[in-house]
């Protein structure tokens, strides 16, 4: 038995014989035949049809095929399409997001588009070992057939995958990264908001819907903020490769109640209308665990986030906190949701800070802001209170799953104000504020280097693991 691998250079069907030309170029192609005979059983005929169908599709897509045949013979015995070492995600459309997935992708990888006449190298906006994202596919890339690959200046290179580039229109729903191949991978959604509920109880159109480039820009920023700053809780062990990331941008949305995902709160706060988010996304067949809702208000730019409300009826993974047994529940009933301004200050860690609020659970453990003292509401994992502000900070913060975590006696160098009774857990990096604290006051002006405290990191690790393995 022998195999021949190459592109499908031609297909000719004459009577009951199909001849296919396989090779790198038309001039070097070798012909193989598939003969349909009256003696073929139904099963045999179905196989031959499927094989020819596969060859036709491979020709249209520009994929190489592997033909199995007898040595020195031309009759086709089998057909298969080999895989590629990268996978473009979704359609290639000018001005739209464009993702390529793979493995072991170096941080300096570029995306190369090649036609018979041109080679265009695009610097991506975001690179992870399994994923490269271009926030807007440049219009310089020729419409029509291209071959796309990843490569680095040092010579690392992937295979080339044929793709068809179109001029538009950009898609409404875009899966940026598909995550684990299962029914409900952990999903972070980034929808563009349609309408705003104002302080005066009016519904007004969100100006974001006329600013698609701004939306693309902030999505790329959010991804870098979630997955490429010093705090690695979301990307540890590269497990962000198990997560799905999806955007929704529908410029046709009317500013009616279902499409208005955010509401103003005086003087400058914007928060999500948390019970609107999941139904809105369901209209696009998108189900999320956390939604980072992007809006374009220039008057209410300070973000606020609702923690998720997990589904108590679904399975969970138990954990203990100071002897009390709680659950890392696996599925959300109402996803956590944050309202993020499209032109937010890029020097901070707002997407990460807000996303961590949203990933927590309103009833089984909130992750709250540490930069204010009082925090009413349900159980929180990362803040405790002394009986009096004058009481010393205890040595022990909490016992989580049998392991003691120390308290932070000095509040990461920011110091606890004398009137505060709240206190926090010890930090992973004691030289910088906690991600959930006043990160703007880090000593070197670079909040991107802030980390969490030890307990919140452990709790989030377990919380995410429970959801990623559901």
């Amino acid at each position, binding site marked *: 038995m022998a195999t021949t691998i190459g592109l499908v250079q031609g297909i000719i069907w004459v009577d009951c014989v199909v001849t296919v030309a396989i090779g790198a170029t038309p001039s070097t192609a070798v012909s193989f035949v598939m003969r349909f005979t009256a003696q073929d059983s139904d099963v045999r005929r179905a196989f031959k049809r499927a094989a020819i169908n596969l060859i036709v599709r491979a020709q249209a897509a520009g994929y190489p095929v592997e033909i199995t045949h007898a040595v020195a013979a031309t009759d086709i015995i089998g057909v298969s399409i080999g895989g590629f070492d990268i996978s473009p995600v979704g359609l290639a459309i000018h001005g739209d997001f464009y993702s390529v997935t793979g493995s072991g992708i170096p941080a300096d990888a570029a995306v190369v588009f090649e036609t018979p006449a041109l080679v265009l190298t695009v610097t991506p906006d975001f690179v992870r070992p399994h994923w490269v994202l271009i926030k807007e596919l440049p219009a310089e890339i020729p419409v029509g057939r291209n071959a796309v690959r990843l490569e680095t200046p040092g010579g690392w290179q992937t295979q080339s995958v044929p793709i068809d580039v179109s001029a538009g229109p950009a898609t409404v729903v875009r899966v940026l990264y598909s995550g684990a191949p299962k029914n409900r991978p952990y999903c972070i959604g980034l929808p563009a908001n349609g309408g705003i509920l104002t302080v005066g109880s009016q519904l007004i159109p969100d100006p974001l819907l006329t600013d698609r480039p701004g939306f693309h820009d902030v999505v790329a920023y959010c991804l870098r903020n979630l997955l490429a700053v010093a705090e690695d809780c979301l990307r540890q062990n590269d497990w962000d490769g198990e997560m799905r990331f999806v955007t929704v941008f529908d410029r046709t949305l009317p500013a009616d109640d279902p499409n208005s995902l955010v509401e103003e709160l*005086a*003087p400058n*706060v914007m928060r999500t209308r948390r019970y609107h988010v999941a139904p809105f996304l369901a209209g696009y067949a998108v189900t999320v665990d956390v939604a980072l809702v992007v809006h374009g208000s220039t008057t209410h730019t300070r973000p606020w986030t609702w923690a998720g409300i997990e589904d108590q009826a679904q399975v969970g993974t138990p954990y203990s906190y100071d002897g009390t047994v709680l659950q890392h529940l696996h599925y959300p009933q109402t996803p956590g949701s944050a309202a993020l301004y499209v032109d937010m200050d890029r020097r901070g860690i707002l997407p990460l800070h807000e996303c961590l609020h949203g990933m927590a659970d309103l009833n089984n453990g909130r992750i709250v802001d540490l930069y*204010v003292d009082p925090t009413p509401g349900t159980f929180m994992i990362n803040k405790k209170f002394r009986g009096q502000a004058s009481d010393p900070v205890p040595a022990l913060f909490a016992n989580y799953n049998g392991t003691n975590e120390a308290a932070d006696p000095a509040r990461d160098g920011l110091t606890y104000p004398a009137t505060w009774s709240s206190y926090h857990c010890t930090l992973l990096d004691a030289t910088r504020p906690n991600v959930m604290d006043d990160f703007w006051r880090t000593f070197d002006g670079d909040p991107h280097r802030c980390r969490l405290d030890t307990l919140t990191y452990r709790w989030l690790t377990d919380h995410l693991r429970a959801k990623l393995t559901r």
Partner: protein
Amino acid sequence: MEPLHPDLRQALKRAHPGLTDDDIDRFEELLARVLSYDPTTEADAIARVSRERDEMLARMMPHYAEVAQAFAAERRPRERAERPRVQTRIKPPES
């Protein structure tokens, strides 16, 4: 919620002579309280704290919204204008 940027805090004090850090901290506490309550089950608590917050805003920081908007506008990102960088090479004709 985003922590109050130190430069915004200073801008608020400049716009409201006599305003102190303690005043701003108190306002931040009230804001955090309002947002921490559940609107579906704690409407009374929200209304009570909101009244105090609104009164404080009107009496001590009437220009808060304008100052915050101007601050946000100043901090808008510059990278926004950048598009993905593209290098184009024309391939030599095949011999």
